[in-house]
């Protein structure tokens, strides 16, 4: 088996490279993705190897990037577009929500739009305003879109392959603060389904459910809790839409307690949806209400305050304590 240790950003780069090599209809598009290789260097070297007609530096216009990707998909291409930062996706939100998400249904299934929208998201890198947001719930609320977020290099590699092969539009949220985390990538393994959650750590006392950047935090929480004799299970949800409720249910029926952790604001967030559905499914199994840890109902704060805003070890452990106290 071909296994290699690489950073998450490099894994996406390798995945895009493989897609470009495999399918001549795959295109990479976005601001600065060509010569610069993207502001995070995720597309580094791709234009050099595949040319300007496959790896396209676009004008600085997010709606234009997504709107033209829709047109290219209508022509039979499979564009993978990059939105440079989470907070810049909103000029393209109209095209994503009113056009990309709905054209398959409007055409009664005649038109397919295999477009991947890559969005580096989340905080923890000390960035300025609009560079640290987690808008996944805003997209998950829209039927017609699929929303995924890898937490490690291997998933980043394979989930990108699967997203590109999907005939549905996929919003691919990349945890930018984990871009430089290394992990083993086996490039010839057969991956599990794109929208299946995984048990990242087994445990019996409580389930921590997270995706993207918060999976690592939850694994650290579980390690810290283990020192106190608490055995936490950690789920890597991987997909926000669809959400794999079956895996969460199985875990909760075992542990009887659930804490959901994400960076996005708690209010109307993905944690609220998980709490509601797991309460419906597991009402008689639960020993405590489902608790949520996430961002506040406030604009993402300036960098010097982001550690207060983002769920960290102590805030998650506090929620674990509260859940176990019932």
């Amino acid at each position, binding site marked *: 088996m071909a296994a290699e240790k690489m950073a998450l950003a490099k894994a996406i780069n390798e995945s895009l490279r493989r897609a470009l090599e495999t399918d001549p209809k795959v295109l990479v598009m976005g601001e600065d993705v060509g010569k610069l290789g993207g502001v995070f260097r995720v597309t580094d070297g791709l234009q050099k190897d595949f040319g300007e007609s496959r790896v396209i530096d676009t004008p600085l216009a997010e709606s*234009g990037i997504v709107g033209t990707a829709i047109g290219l998909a*209508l022509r039979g*291409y499979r564009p993978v577009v990059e939105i440079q930062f989470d907070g810049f996706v909103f000029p393209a939100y109209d095209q994503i929500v009113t056009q990309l998400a709905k054209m398959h249904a409007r055409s*009664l299934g005649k038109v397919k739009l295999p477009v991947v929208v890559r969005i580096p998201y989340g905080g923890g890198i000390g960035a300025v305003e609009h560079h640290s947001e987690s808008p996944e719930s805003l997209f998950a609320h829209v039927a017609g879109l699929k929303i995924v977020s890898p937490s490690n290099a291997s998933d980043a590699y394979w989930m990108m392959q699967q997203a590109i092969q999907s005939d549905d539009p996929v919003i691919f949220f990349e945890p930018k603060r984990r871009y430089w985390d290394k992990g083993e990538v086996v490039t010839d393994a057969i991956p599990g389904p794109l929208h299946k959650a995984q048990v990242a750590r087994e445990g019996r006392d409580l389930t921590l459910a997270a995706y993207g950047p918060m999976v690592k935090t939850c694994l650290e929480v579980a390690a810290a809790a283990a020192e106190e004799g608490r055995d936490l299970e950690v789920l890597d949800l991987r997909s926000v839409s669809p959400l794999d409720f079956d895996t969460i249910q199985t875990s909760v029926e075992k542990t009887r307690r659930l804490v959901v952790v994400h960076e996005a604001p708690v209010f109307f967030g993905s944690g609220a949806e998980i709490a509601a559905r797991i309460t419906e499914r597991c009402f008689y199994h639960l020993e405590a209400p489902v608790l949520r840890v996430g961002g506040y109902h406030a604009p993402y704060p300036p960098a010097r305050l982001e550690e207060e805003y983002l769920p960290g070890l102590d805030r998650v452990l506090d929620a674990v304590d509260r859940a176990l106290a019932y």
Partner: protein
Amino acid sequence: MTVESTAARKPRRSAGTKSTAGKTTSARKTASAEPELVQLLTPEGKRVKNAEFDKYVAGITPEELRGLYRDMVLTRRFDAEATALQRQGELGLWASLLGQEAAQIGSGRATREDDYVFPTYREHGVAWCRGVDPTNLLGMFRGVNNGGWDPNSNNFQLYTIVIGSQTLHATGYAMGVAKDGADSAVIAYFGDGASSQGDVAESFTFSAVYNAPVVFFCQNNQWAISEPTEKQTRVPLYQRAQGYGFPGVRVDGNDVLACLAVTKWALERARNGEGPTLVEAFTYRMGAHTTSDDPTRYRGDEERQSWEAKDPILRLRAYLESANHADEGFFAELETESEALGKRVREAVRAMPDPDRFAIFENVYADGHALVDEERAQFAAYQASFADVEGA
């Protein structure tokens, strides 16, 4: 080029004119001066020469001219029937094209089968030219679907409700055409109101930068619901193209021959790898924006009357008669055909079945989605619960 008289147009002043008086910019001067527009048939139906564009209709036969006339008459008849059906409660809404037949038939007939059309929601005449059955256009207005046809059957995309979105789709599609090395062209329709949208500006940028084979066909029908063109722009719309680095031209949108010629020219440029073109068809929406609109609140009768004198259908009829290209028999036969079309549309709409209730869950995703499956099952169980009650 022939210059159309401005005398018949009611002068309009923008809200800002007074405060900027005395500091008049060249842009304002340009906006108030009526620019030249390409015209091959005068409102009286006289054929006028045009050194640049005559060649694009030079070989047109009397039969083809009658065909253009037939297209416009039948499109108008279809449109009138749809308006009536809305008034009768058969359609929830209708966006009439009355007055814009020449712009749509002229440009639509200029397209080739392998070209691709991206319409807004008023391009009934273009749809007709592309071979889309007019009854298919009515499904979304009746509320039985959100589209109604397979875009790839006639290379005619679904109607787009969000103003200007489709110009980017057209541009992307055209970028794909260029990548494929095909010599097809793409045409995007939009209105004067849409010209204010960011997506239209972005489509101009992208198409220019990538030299995309796309024609932007703006039907300036003078009104974006209640707002006149002066609320959208301080310069004639066709001049916008210059700032993006491609040509723009204003054509008499009520002159089907001129629209045919200018669009052929623009499509030929696209096919030849010369990039995008903006065509502004200067026309008039004779009816309301949609059947929900009340134009008497924002415009007077005299304006409409001045445009009725430039009616696209009467103009071509006058030319056909004066040139002896059509006899009474042709017009009588067309009248019969027109009535038959109205009857067919009426009957088809009334016979249109409501969609199956499970259609809510169909085609939401191409590859399926667990939540949709779950909710479909819940919906089915809920529906089945009524059957139990009925059966009890």
